[in-house]
């Protein structure tokens, strides 16, 4: 069958009986089986469970008890705990871990009747910007398999881009939804910190981690965000601010909207051709009636160091639970408890994770805490203030999502700091807790370019409207890396 191009199309097709959820689910599973070996976007594919869920969804449709999203297939990043299904976080450490419980968002999407196709590949414990740190192997970019898909939600991005799933969940600690969305030519939203529950999302850096939707269009993001968002009593940091009807408020004129252009973001590290694409996109927003003004975010250059200090500090503590005592990897025949810890953790964690654990342990150590962790927190406050100041003048801030398009696999493997610098446009919104959207804005050398829009707290609807109106007038999101009918039999 010809796969539908959007969740909106799927909802219509299921409602009209053009296809059943079982037919659709089968087609996606076939496509994964046939085409994913080249991409490696899934760690676990849940054939039986997906078909069973689809069957139940079809039954709900026929007896009238279906929700809007009942029967719509989706994929979960392997960072979300799924009951009865292996949940690895891309690590050898959790290779054998079958979660006994569902993450809150998994439960919420499941209760909508959505069909989980499987668990997508990711950088180990979400630490990486290229999906090369996964224990389950690198993911290849569907637009050019010699290139990385970005990370850490590279599996979700590649799977959506290649048409293995209409939508997927991702998580974003420093750009992990937006940068792979940009590299794979899809849309991705990192909501406001606290908008989506973190319960059951395997922690990397608790004060920065935020789950969000990934899909081919802003409209599809809105479909997925609605059930994901909202207060969860199991997550003390989740917000009680009321959610909005994200898909109902997409259409709005951009006239009178002001978009800020931070001068610090258009620096020497930005690829000239990528800059050109963004300049075209800015003209498009002006054409749609938006007012573009130059703004200043003076702390921009401090965000990368502050981010790597804070995220490493938090992960060094968050990952202490992987000790081989209760679950997950455990070394063979430990001679004592010290040996158990040392060998379990040496064997279970990959290089990048170890690098961050060591960095994080160092910056929290007595005598270094003030110079690193405390200072980074002070910078974080300044970054927040910068944005708060900007949002007194503008509705959103515009920038490239990443300074380059997807780079070749292996390019930055020997130089982690070079890799980290690629996060220069994305980490600030995590440090400030702001929502940020990445949407396709064009191509450079056949590879997609992402455009980022950062909004003020809980202004997801405003961002989605900006993104949707842009997509309606440009159509950059309708360029697909794979033919719709390929491999569905």
């Amino acid at each position, binding site marked *: 069958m010809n796969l539908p191009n959007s969740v909106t199309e799927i909802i219509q097709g299921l409602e009209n009986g053009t296809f059943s959820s079982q037919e659709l689910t089968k087609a996606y599973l076939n496509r994964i089986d046939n085409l994913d070996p080249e991409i490696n976007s899934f760690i676990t594919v849940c054939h039986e469970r997906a078909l069973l869920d689809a069957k139940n969804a079809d039954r709900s449709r026929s007896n009238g008890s279906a929700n809007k999203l009942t029967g719509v297939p989706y994929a979960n990043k392997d960072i979300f*705990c799924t009951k009865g299904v292996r949940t690895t976080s891309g690590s050898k450490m*959790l290779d054998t871990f079958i*979660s006994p419980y569902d993450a809150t968002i998994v439960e919420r999407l499941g209760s909508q009747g959505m069909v989980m196709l499987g668990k997508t590949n990711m950088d180990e414990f979400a630490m990486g910007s290229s999906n090369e740190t996964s224990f389950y192997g690198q993911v290849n970019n569907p637009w050019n398999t010699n290139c990385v898909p970005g990370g850490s939600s590279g599996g979700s991005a590649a799977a959506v881009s290649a048409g293995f799933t209409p939508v997927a969940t991702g998580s974003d600690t420093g750009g992990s939804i937006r940068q792979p969305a940009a590299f794979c030519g899809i849309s991705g939203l990192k909501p406001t910190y606290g908008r989506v529950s973190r319960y*059951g999302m395997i*922690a990397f850096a608790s004060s920065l981690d935020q789950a969000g939707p990934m899909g081919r269009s802003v409209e599809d993001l809105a479909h997925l965000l609605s059930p994901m968002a909202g207060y969860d*009593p199991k997550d*003390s940091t989740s917000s009680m601010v009321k959610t909005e009807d994200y898909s109902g408020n997409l259409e709005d004129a951009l006239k009178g909207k002001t978009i800020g252009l931070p001068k610090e973001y258009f620096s020497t590290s930005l690829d000239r051709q990528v800059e050109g694409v963004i300049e075209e996109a800015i003209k498009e927003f002006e054409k749609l009636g938006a007012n573009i003004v130059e703004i200043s975010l003076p702390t921009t250059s401090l965000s990368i160091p502050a981010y790597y200090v804070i995220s490493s500090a938090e992960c060094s503590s968050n990952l202490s*639970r992987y000790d081989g*005592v209760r679950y997950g990897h455990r070394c063979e025949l430990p001679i004592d408890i010290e040996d158990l810890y040392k060998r379990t953790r040496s064997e279970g964690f990959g290089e990048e994770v170890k690098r961050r654990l060591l960095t994080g342990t160092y910056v*929290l150590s007595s005598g270094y805490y003030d110079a690193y962790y405390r200072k980074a927190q002070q910078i974080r406050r300044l970054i927040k203030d910068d944005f708060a100041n900007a949002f007194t003048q503008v509705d959103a801030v515009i920038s490239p999502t990443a300074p380059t398009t997807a780079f070749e696999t292996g390019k930055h493997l020997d130089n982690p700091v070079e890799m980290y610098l690629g996060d220069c446009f994305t980490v600030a919104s995590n440090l400030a807790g702001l929502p940020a959207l990445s949407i396709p804005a064009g191509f450079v050398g056949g590879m997609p370019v992402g455009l980022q829009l950062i909004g003020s707290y809980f202004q997801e609807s405003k961002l989605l409207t900006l993104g949707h109106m842009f997509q309606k007038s440009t159509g950059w999101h309708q360029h697909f890396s794979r033919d719709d009918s390929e491999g569905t039999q």
Partner: protein
Amino acid sequence: MSWEIVIGLEVHAQLATSSKIFSGSSTEYGAKANTQASAVDLALPGVLPVLNKRVLDLAIMLGLAIDGEIASESIFSRKNYFYPDSPKGYQISQYDKPIISKGQLKFVNNGEEKMINITRAHLEEDAGKSLHGEFERSTAIDLNRSGTPLLEIVSEPELRSAQDAVLYLKELHCLVRTLGICDGNMQEGSFRCDANVSVRKAEDPELGTRTEVKNLNSFRFVEKAINYEAARQIGVIEEGGVIKQETRLYDPEKNETRTMRSKEDAHDYRYFPDPDLLPITITAEHIARIAKDLPETPWNKRLRYLKDYGVSSEDAEILANSPETSVYFEACMRKSTLSPKLVANWIIGELSALINKSSVTISKSPIVPERLVSVLKRIEDETISGKTAKHLLGLMWDSSSSADQIIADEGLGQVSDNELLEKVISQTLTNFPSQVEEYKAGKLKILGFLVGHVMKQTKGKANPAMVKALMEKNLRQSK
């Protein structure tokens, strides 16, 4: 130059909540291993802590009772260290912003009132238990206790003897039990104590190097361990040695302390604010709400008993120190106009004896306050003697009949009918003329014999004081 002992105490009081501090699991003691450990307690990937708000109320109660500062904002921090019974690899505790600081606790040693400053009291979670010897070559882990709420109460190093330390500890123990924030059960580990001990020459302004002594799970061990440790330190210094800062374990079997870990092995706990939990905010309204129903502290209760009831300070202490006993005593006083001293005597004496013989507590005693009061009233109106009352209480313990019913049924009422007594007395004087003569000759002790005879004649039901008085009157008249 004499030695001075300097002691500071760290007390871990388990807060009396039914569920854990960051999960919904039960805190009940003694369940089968790992049956009270949820996903959060097991530290599964992805789980998050949610604060049990009840612990704030209990901490505020202590803060009010010790006249401490209750922080309007305090934060939970992570204390990072690897240990098999610490499932997250860190303990959630409080570091630079504890919920309570700057309190005081008063106690009396040998009639001298002392006041000790309490540096801080902070909330934290308990660890699980490592069980050695259950399995060959392996350690078993029980996470039932993991996440049990604790309030760590830290004193300034102002205690100057093992005896002071014990009295401070007993006062604190009594306080947390009276407030109802901790059950105080030391055997089950609900109330644990570590002692920081150092010694110095009395005139030395500097504190000596301290050691931390752990595993003090009874008042007696606290006293013995501190005395042992202080003597050990003095011995080391007098032989020209120096004290090493270290953690020492008390061994009650051998009555000695041994090195557990030295300062060099001390962890760098890498404390930082826990990003999974929001700062704790406490409003003035919240504090006022708790203050409204705050139980009276044992200290104030004792003062009130002395002032309002005029009982002895020993009795005031016994009555006030046990929350159950003081509730009982006050119920008796509310229900009667009896002499407080009489009530106190009988609660502390006979009733306690009966309670100690059985295994109930005073709050579960079959002799409820009304029943004790009815017995004491019959003593006061001289229906029965004290001796009979003891007997009566014993009967009442196993019976549901009222005191008056038993007095009537058993014929326990004492004879206070003057006419009847006069008759027996005059008969006695007639029957024992030589004894009467001896009395008149100045051998006053013989009176006891004569009174005894009357008591025998009345089968003990006469009021001895009355018999004595009447007898003396008769003897004077027959001069």
